[in-house]
């Protein structure tokens, strides 16, 4: 289960960041922000060959001592980042993928809301609920 889930706009500013409340929130902000370096690099590497269908899931972006950071980029260049605790070895790649898929579906629902202005921070209870379901439950 994730310790931090973030949605980043096309222009690389955060639309949504949620992390487990037990740990330093700022640290996760930095982790997500720095992971954008790798995301940008991966996107630009694909763009060079036209017609190359890019996979949305970018896989493990980079490992740190404590966390694993996974990335996902929609076709409109909105980025999803999921941070998982390194000690959590039970989580398989497939599960991460399905988390991203769920996140993407929920994000699409948010965008379909006619009262939501794309580019504004996400303030949706439904989206919050989906994210909470994917986060580490801290009791």
């Amino acid at each position, binding site marked *: 289960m994730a310790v931090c889930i973030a949605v980043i706009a096309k*222009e*690389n500013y955060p639309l949504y960041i949620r992390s487990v409340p037990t740990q330093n*929130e*700022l640290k996760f*902000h*930095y982790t997500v*922000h720095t992971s954008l*370096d790798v995301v940008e690099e991966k996107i630009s590497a694909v763009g060079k060959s036209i017609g190359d269908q890019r996979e949305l899931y970018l896989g493990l972006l980079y490992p740190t001592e404590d966390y694993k950071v996974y990335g996902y980029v929609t076709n409109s260049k909105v980025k999803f980042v999921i941070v998982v605790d390194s000690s959590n070895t039970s989580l398989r790649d497939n599960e991460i993928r399905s988390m991203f898929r769920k996140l993407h579906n929920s994000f699409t629902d948010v965008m379909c809301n006619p009262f939501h*202005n794309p580019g*504004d921070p996400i303030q949706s209870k439904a989206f919050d609920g989906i994210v909470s379901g994917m986060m580490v439950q801290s009791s």
Partner: protein
Amino acid sequence: MAASQWELPPELCCRPMAFVALTGLDVVYNAVHRAIWDAFCANRRADRVPISFKVLPGDHEYPKCRTKRTSYEWYIPKGILKTGWMNKHLNLVPALVVLFYELDWDDPQWKEKQSECATKVEIVRTSLQGRNTKVAVVLIQKKTPLPPGEDLVASERAAALCTACDLSGKSLFVLPHTDHLVGYIIRLENAFYEHAQTYYYTEIRRVKSHKEFLNKTTHQLLFVRHQFKIGFFSELKQDTQNALKYYRTAYSLVHELRAHETNMLEIKTLAGFINYKICRLCFQHNTPLDAIAQFRKHIDQCKKKIGSAELAFEHAAWMSKQFQSFGELFDEAIKLGLTAIQTQNPGFYYQQAACYSQDRKQQALTLCQAGASYPSPDPLDTQSGGLDFYGQRHWRQGHQSIDPPDAEKEKTGILALQMKERDVPHSELIIALLSNAVAQFKKYKCPRMKSHLMVQMGEEYYHAKDYTKALKLLDYVMCDYRTERWWALLTAILTTALRCAFLMASVKDYTVYCMELLGRASTLKDEHKARIEKNLLRVLQNQVPDPEPDCDPASVGAARTLWNDRMALSGSNELTVEVQDYIPFIQCKGRFQSPSFHVDQPILLQVFLRADCPQPVAFSKLAVSLSNQEYNQWCVAEASGSDSMTLLPGKTRSFSFSFVAKTEDVGKKIEVTGVELMLGAAAGRCVFLSWRGAGGDAASAHEALQASRSSRRWGRGLEARQEPSWDSLSLQPSTMIISRVPRISVQLSHQPPALTNELYRIGISVRSEEDATARDVTLTAGLKPGQDAGLSQTTQVTLDGSVVCDDSCPSLIPDIPLGTLEPGQRLDRCVYVTCVSTGPRVFLFHVAYSVDTSVDGRRIVCRCHKDETVTIETVVPFEVSVKFVSTKFEPLDRVAVDVPFLLMTDVQSSSPWPLLLSSSSLTLLAMSSTSAQLQSQVQDVVLETGECASECFSLRCPAHNSSSNAVATGQYLISWRRQSSSADSPLIQTTVTLPHVILEPVPVYIHADLPSFGRVRESLPVRYHIENRTALVQEVEMAVEPSDAFMFSGLKQVRLRILPGSEQQMLYNYYPLMAGYQTLPQLNISLPRCQTSNSQALRRFLPQRIFVKPQGRQLDDASIAAA
């Protein structure tokens, strides 16, 4: 010392090379020896064998060899690896000792020298007692040796010397001191290298042989030690593959050791050493993935082995060192050609090292409490000054049981270590590691990671109390976070920066950071913002602000003094802050009410201000600067006396300015170049917030974009809202000053289309609707500029309607003065246009005038203008067609020489307006008219549309002596004008060039004179003229055929001769018998001498028929009456 405790020993980090000692060389006083030594140690490139040479005196004492243990049964090892061991084998115990001795084979004192040499060898041997070190002898000889086998004396003496010195033949070398010294030296050292390898091989065998004596319970440490030693010897032997294998075994053995708190440090130290060796060799073997895998395994295994909780900082320091040294190895490998990638580069290891250093600092802070005094005697002192074994405690060296021998000693020892840790400059270490990492991430395209690390560096500088450097770093990266809109991170950085600025008492920085932390980008809670705002107000009042929370209390005191000094300083209490690149707590948007203003309207400019801070904020002055500075005076709002201007939190306040534009600025743009807001008062400290342009800051561009996308824009109640929503306000930084709306009417009257070449009249009527006199009325009339370039050459404009204009006339007449126009007055003018070519043209009529008017009570003179354009089509007035016919009105394709023919012209009008053809005339070139005076037959004819006026001229073309048959006819001139135009308007001459004719010579010209008609039963005399136009006498046969319609008298058949140039006439009297068109009796003519012309051709000029009237009645009225 404390810092270096964690450094890896240099003998571990170097590349082990076989150690060979050279003795018997006097490198100081003997030039030959010096040259030999230089040849050994100079230019040791990669292609030379890896040996480290040392010059030692002949009687050098080598380290003593301890007596060999015969049994390990009662032996309990005291540690894993002795601190001196690696150095001993790298630098102290040679693999080979070489004795240099000067001796030629034919030396006269051979015997003596031989025994001296043997003695020297013996001394060396004694000193190496118990070691397997080889000894070799090199004879330095002056003479070049003969090829082997030829010098019998040499081989005999060499054998003798070997026996005397107890050397094998392979250990005796000869070094002739000649030209090829380096070549000999290289051969020598290759031989030395082989000896050294043998030595290390035996050493490895020796260590391996201990294994059988060991048992697993008591000698666990020795297993590790021996494997490490074998690995190390293998490296000395340059057998890196095997070295790696042994090190790997050693590494797994190290982790099999029973670990407890007392030996944890020793195990970790050794594990670190062996790991270093493994990673180093993996990189050397170009298998970086193995190195990384080994390192990961190493870290995973050791991460949890913290050891003593009171010395937890040691574990962090050790971890940090592990990462750092791996990073260095990685970096080293990259310098040697390895390629790293974005997600796997040395930066990550440096970063992690820094991270552990930060942990170390934290733990040191919590564990190392101040106050205790350093224990005495120093528990970290040992007799030898250092440790015997790597990773052991000073106060219990060699101790290997689980519990410490002396609890009291243990306590003081830990205390001493903690005291020492307190003196470690942690921040320096962290910063150094971070800056290493920054350099790496910069290289591998990780700008955000770089920024993050720079923030950490900044924070570390802050902890190290180097605020200037901290601010410099933080300021540098702040901009990146601001443009990427990561507000939470920006706020965190700003908070640190604000503390720095406070502690430095830097007024400007403090103000700027306060402003941004109060702004909308800040994620601080309102109570914090309120506190910061209070502090900002204090600074504005020249007071010392309250300290930031979480500042070091000691520093706060120092900062207070600094602030007080600052405040006491007079002057420099004005501060301008360029807020464009920040996100300040006051937002500003300036806009002209309209993108353009007429010069007779007052210009309206609005400035909207909005404060994002939690408390109301007062300011004393608002000033707008414009591109034309003369207007600036009108755009200032100042608080007067007690009534200061206040911005309420979250409320938009607008300030309106209005001014009158100068008439010189018509057509120019007025731009807001800056907005300045003054906070504070001149008495205290004033801060000018200065926006470039019409306001907006680092975040407003994005906000404007979002607002424009927002669906709320179309939401209900938008109009109902009292004040406009801030986001929907857009900037309007510039406005155009345009001229006053003209109040005149310009009407054009003309009759389109224009006719080619015609003087086309366009009437302009200007009528003033002004309330005042319009002065200096000017008219610009003509072809509108900017059309096809050809048009301006084919269009002429004139004011004079009496003369057709020519090429000298322009296509546009500018600024025709029209005088003044009183209110309501009308003015008419005519302009004449000649268009030479057809097609549409756009004509411009530009009427400009000056008028006095007043704006806001100010009288100004405005220049107004009105433009009228009209498109006029030009068409041809008429088509002229010309044809040549014979006198019998038969179309001619060629004209006979000197025979009359007819020229017929048709003028067909295509003008929609009636045309008056005034006259026409022919200008003939080669032709002549048959009539004396050419009279125009279309004089004063009016042609309606589609009507046609024809003329007919009888012409004759004389013989022409040019080579070509074609002859130019001449021109046809028509003078015309529109019927509707006034009588005095000039006539237009249209010239039509007539087509050429093709001439045809006629040898015999026969024509007839006959009346225009005949009458039944009345004589009709016909005279035939036969002209001979050749230079020959022509014989002509003529015969008249009988006809039913005529009787005739005259020669029926005749044959006659005609002289050249003369003419013969034949007279016949025809007597018509029938009325109506009758065919004349046919004349058959033949020229026997000129066969080319047949009767047909000769007859063509003769009339064929004649009209015969019936018999007249007037003579015979009676018969009618009778009838």
